[in-house]
């Protein structure tokens, strides 16, 4: 679960709380490897802004949490440093890519996990590990010091056992930061309580869901309607079907350029033979140290932006993103929130994952990808238990309205009891 942990807890505890950071957030005092062998031994010269802000607020950083290499994965099985196991059942996945972060949030009481989502990497593991995971609006939290996957999609968020814990610490990490220009155009954070009347459920999100998971989601909707007096409306959002391919084109296009810098020079691992021509040297370092999924995504991304394909893939994907954004805007004008299950199934067993093809793994993200593609804030909360494994419900609200999400999650926690496995402190 941790890829690096603090040597010993400080005795004098002047710290107000403890937290962990996903291993793609830069930290001066811990290695920052983003789950990749190619960054083995890398100690950044600076702290990522969210880490720095939590430390300044009195937080003790206890460790770096394991993750899929550079965030490439849904089950946290693509790390160069072992596979974290689900606290509810160690034969099952934590989800990904912030798998270690979700496991830490689940197992440690009073613990704040910094996670990062590009296409669902907070919602997915939150759902599989039965914790709350808030993914803020794109640009709400500074990405300075975040090892890039897809810069136009990456968002730093928080995973914890309850929404109130997130509410306590989210204002600390949110807010503009001159070191990340994309964080500098945000309106003030508003966490006041708001009236929530209506939730939309897109028809497109009700397909290809495991029946038991679907049942738990529908029961959760019933509770919301009956006990919280919220209207539930079925809506149709056709563009949701195209979000997944558009996301993978954009994310891999950006990733393939972001990963170009890892070549055994300047930082990270070094190659063996520096007398080689630079091309051969770069290739040997990259072939040896990138994992299989990283290589696959580099190839996919390079292909999507190549001459002859750029128009068909990269530019098309940009326009699909605009359509998804405007479709959400239309729905969120009428309704306070959009709700779906978070994942189409409960945390799968590692043996099942081994049999899955890459395309099946990518498809598992079809519910978490759309709000991520649109840059919309969303939260995943536990909403039921199937075979003693948690299921999750994902709620999406308008840009910049994280307050609405924390509010609904808080209301939900008043009518639904979360379960946690025997705590191991």
């Amino acid at each position, binding site marked *: 679960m941790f890829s690096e942990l603090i040597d010993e807890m400080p005795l004098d505890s002047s710290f107000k709380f403890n937290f962990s950071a996903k291993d793609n*957030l*830069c930290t001066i005092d811990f290695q*920052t490897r*983003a789950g990749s062998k190619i*960054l083995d031994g*890398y100690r*950044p*010269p*600076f702290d*990522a802004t969210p880490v720095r802000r939590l430390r300044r607020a009195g937080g003790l950083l206890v460790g770096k949490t394991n993750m899929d290499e550079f965030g490439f994965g849904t089950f946290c099985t693509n790390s160069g440093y072992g596979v974290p196991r689900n606290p509810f059942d160690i034969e099952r996945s934590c989800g990904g890519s912030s798998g270690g972060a979700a496991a830490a949030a689940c197992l440690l009481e009073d613990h704040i996990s910094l996670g990062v989502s590009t296409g669902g990497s907070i919602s997915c593991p939150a759902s599989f590990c039965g914790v709350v995971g808030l993914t803020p609006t794109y640009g709400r939290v500074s*990405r*300075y*010091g*975040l*090892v*890039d996957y*897809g*810069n*136009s999609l990456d968002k730093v968020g928080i995973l914890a056992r309850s929404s109130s814990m997130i509410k306590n610490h989210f204002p600390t990490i949110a807010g503009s930061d*001159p*070191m*990340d*220009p*994309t964080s500098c*155009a945000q309106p003030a954070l508003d966490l006041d309580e708001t009236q929530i009347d209506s939730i939309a459920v897109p028809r497109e999100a009700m397909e290809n869901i495991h029946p038991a998971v679907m049942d738990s989601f529908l029961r959760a909707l019933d509770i919301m309607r009956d006990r919280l007096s919220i209207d539930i409306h079925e809506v149709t959002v056709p563009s949701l079907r195209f979000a997944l391919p558009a996301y993978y084109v954009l994310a891999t*296009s*950006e990733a*393939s*350029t972001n990963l*170009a*810098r890892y*070549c055994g*020079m*300047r*930082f990270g691992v070094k190659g063996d033979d520096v007398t080689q021509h*630079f*091309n051969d040297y*770069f290739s040997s370092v990259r072939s040896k140290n990138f994992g299989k999924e990283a290589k696959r995504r580099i190839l996919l991304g*390079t292909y999507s*932006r*190549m*001459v002859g394909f*750029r128009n068909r893939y*990269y530019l098309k994907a*940009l326009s699909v993103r605009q359509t998804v954004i405007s479709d959400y805007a239309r729905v969120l004008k009428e309704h306070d929130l959009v709700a779906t299950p978070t994942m189409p199934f409960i945390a799968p067993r590692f043996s099942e994952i081994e049999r899955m093809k890459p395309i099946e793994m990518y498809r598992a993200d079809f519910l978490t990808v759309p709000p991520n593609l649109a840059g919309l804030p969303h939260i995943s909360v536990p909403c039921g238990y199937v075979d003693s494994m948690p299921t999750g419900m994902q709620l999406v609200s308008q840009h910049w309205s994280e307050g609405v999400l924390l509010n609904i999650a808080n209301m939900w926690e008043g009518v639904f009891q979360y379960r946690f496995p025997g705590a191991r402190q």
Partner: protein
Amino acid sequence: MKIGLEVHLQLPTVSKLFCSCSTSGNGPNTSICPTCLGFPGSRPRLNRRALEMTILISRFLNCRISERSWFSRKTYFYPDLPKNFQITQYESPIGVDGGYSFNGKMVRITRVHLEEDPGKIKRVGKSGEEVSLIDYNRSGIPLVEIVTAPDITSPSEAREFMADLLIELRHLVGLSERNEQTVRVDANISVGEERVEIKNILGLKNLERGLSFEASRQAKMLKAGKRIVRETRNFDEERRVTTSARSKESEEDYGYILEPDLGMYHVSSMAKMIQVPETPLKRAERLSAEYGIDRTSIRQIVLTSSTLTDFLERLCSNVPPDIAVTWVLGPLSANWKYLERRLDEDLSDRIENTIQMVIRGDITDSEARMRIGAFARGGGAETTQDSKERSTLAELVSECIDQNPQVLFDFRSNKRAANFVIGQIMRETKGKYSSSEIVETVNKEIERRLKDRVVT
């Protein structure tokens, strides 16, 4: 012959394009940070000044300014490029479709865009044991790229074009010597049908040499009935020849994507707030048209200094332009080294006066030349005309003594009594006269009065 240029010029900003590192490092790898080294998690932040300079240059080159402009990633692997992609502009250059009139003709400007410079590779060590060292001080220095259409028709014209462009930009954005020395040009040249690109030529001299070699190489090939292949060549400065380089990717092969960490910039609204000042050669063109001054003369004056040109322009409105040019190119230019620091409003008046006097026939030509020479060195030499100036000072002194007659009594017993008058005059004239001039005049006047017994 058709020649088109891609000019890469460093902009004279204090800090780099995407970080706050200084653009002038002191020793290799001293002006670097996570951003210009491309460390994971670092981000670019745009230097507004660099954007403004690029807009100014685009406006100056009569380009259409893009409504909105953004940056792109151009991906290629090279050790001097820290991120292995360069942040540049692709679909939305700052300026497009401009033109620069030069030698009486128009060179069309295809585009003007802004990008980051990579680091610099240095080969060191004995032959056979060479190693490459990289200095990243240059990484992230803002570069403006100016692309012309193939409207230039000879290697010498290409050099002249570049020289003129640099003169204008020196004035426009304040290029430093280093900026000018590091100008790099990619030149496309075709003698027949197919064009050849010469990459990365450093400096104007090499530009002309490289193009000349390539022009004659192509001409010889055509004469021998050979076909010219479209290719990229390098210019070897030592041997002064071009050699075939790797076959080059086309622009599209760089797999451009948007730079997601930087936003959209509304450059056309920024452009509205930016005034394009008159550059030296544009001014030369205007003065040449307004006063019928020949190109060579006006160019020489304009290139000497803008203050000298200011003087010419004022002179031209009061005396016939040909006379004005003769005086400016003659005695003024000859004494420019001294006049440069001195030529204020007052001195301009005095020089113009002198020239007027020659025209009226009050003094001779050579007398006027001597006078201007004297002005240049601080007005030391005595001529009849100086008496006018002197009389003004003498009048002041005389007036002051009239008002303070006791000075004369005191002076007889104590010469330092003159200091009172000297101080008064100095305060009154605020540095118009040198102190020795004033001391001399005051002493002279007091002694004259005492001798003439103006007071008894």
